């Protein structure tokens, strides 16, 4: 499986990254080398093997639905690149 610079550009868009033409060539080359390397996984027989997404056999860890302390608004906003009136500011989207 090989990926073309156009496909790499599509993946970059999905990941919200942008590259120059030169960078795109370079990343396409690296990705192809890595994809070639990981292709060896296709040799492993995994028929009937349940995928393992996590080392622990746990699911849906619940706690009591009670009020706990949380970050104060000003602390949550302290690192914001742009803020106004207790809110994060982003470029206009509508």
């Amino acid at each position, binding site marked *: 499986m090989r990926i073309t610079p156009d496909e790499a550009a599509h993946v970059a868009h999905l990941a*919200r990254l942008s590259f120059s033409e030169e960078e795109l060539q370079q990343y396409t080359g690296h990705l192809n080398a890595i994809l070639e390397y*990981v292709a060896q996984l296709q040799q492993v027989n995994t028929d009937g093997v349940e995928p393992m997404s996590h080392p622990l056999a746990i699911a849906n860890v619940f706690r009591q639905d009670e009020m706990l302390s949380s970050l104060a608004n000003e602390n949550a906003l302290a690192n914001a690149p742009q803020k106004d009136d207790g809110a994060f500011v982003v470029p206009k989207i509508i």
Partner: protein
Amino acid sequence: MSDLTRLSIKELHDAYRARDISPVEVTQAYLERISSVDTKVKAYLTVTGDLAIQQAQEAVRRFESGEQVTPLTGIPLGIKDLLCTQGVKTTCASRMLENFIPPYNATVVERLNGQGAVMLGKLNMDEFAMGSSTENSAFHCTHNPWDLSRVPGGSSGGSSAAVAARLCAASLGSDTGGSIRQPASYCGVVGLKPTYGRVSRFGLIAFASSLDQVGPFTRDVTDCALLMNAIAGHDTKDSTSVAGKDMDYTQCLQKGLKGMRCGLPQEYFIEGVQRDVREAVERAIAALKDMGCEIVPVSLPHTPYAVATYYIVATSEASSNLSRYDGVKYGFRASEYANLLEMYKKTRSAGFGPEVKRRIMLGSYSLSAGYYDAFYKKASQVRALFKRDFDNAFNACDVLITPVAPTTAFKIGEKTADPIQMYLNDIFTIPVNLAGIPAISIPCGFDGNGLPIGVQIMADAFREDNMFKAAYNLEQAVGGIQNWPEP
């Protein structure tokens, strides 16, 4: 006393109790050493001198007032710069978080504070913990204290170098595919990756959440047990941390290994392992045999697929975890953009370094429509086979003994051109993370260039007791390290 920085945690604690020395003197000794030696090693990204003195004074007060003290009260530590420290810059060695000041502490940091430990500063690493050499730090490379032209390993290279160069008494790091054990091996210190779920990940800046685990770097096995006692345990803020498995790790440090079964996985003793490394590990195995261990040959047949499996699983999780860096809530934001989409793209492209972008690309590709089954799902199935391999092995033995890395520390710049060569360096450490089991690296000798070699001891999930027992006895047998480097 010029040698305060040579004392182990245990020795410091005994001396504090006896009022022979004070935490303030020791903290000052470390801060002085940081100002003279760290210009060469470059282990720290941030030194918190004033805070450290303040915490040391508080420790003095605890000792003098007869208040409760613990083995870590007044002990000067370094913290990898991906553990959130309230009010202290936490950069993950990335431009993206260059000015990020967390509004809360990671649970492990909170626990150390509760014990009265002293924080000397934040330690360098590969950006977002992605790398095996600390060369991917956005700020600077850390140098190996045994040979400044070589890497300290990675991604927790600052944490290992600082302990070896006596720039802190011990440190914390994180291990996703070997990021504690490999740098520990390269720097001749003890490094432990605990069982997945033993130590809270709350406040650990995520790389690959199903693999990441926090652990200690120390100069001996006893100190490692002391740090584990402080940081391990269930945390309601991390739903993957496990309750009811606590133990006193110092109780595992018992002499005698008679009857312990040590497994040697044949797939770890292969061509391509540096001769000095193989011989040092073989000497460690002989020492275990002399102490009455039964040596059992075992097989972990999927080992050759470790790197391929890991680079799909870890990058997939990373691409998802790192989507949070969008220039909105915290961190870097590009200065010029026409709309929201452009803001995201310019922010992320300028904020992340090349290796991080490479991994986000691979992960996004593996998870994208049409490729998910061939990549992420397939890798997750092979991952299950790794777990099965270990389950079978631990039916036949109590611990597994292997090399940590195929070679000793390599030269700075030697492997940066070829990502796959760099990745292959992690082949012996990755399987442990895939299966979620614990493993420790302890020093077991030196190569012809005087560079330290580590041996890895793995145990079944939540069986750190076996691992500590083997490590403690092996350390006694091979002698540990007495002559720390003077960079």
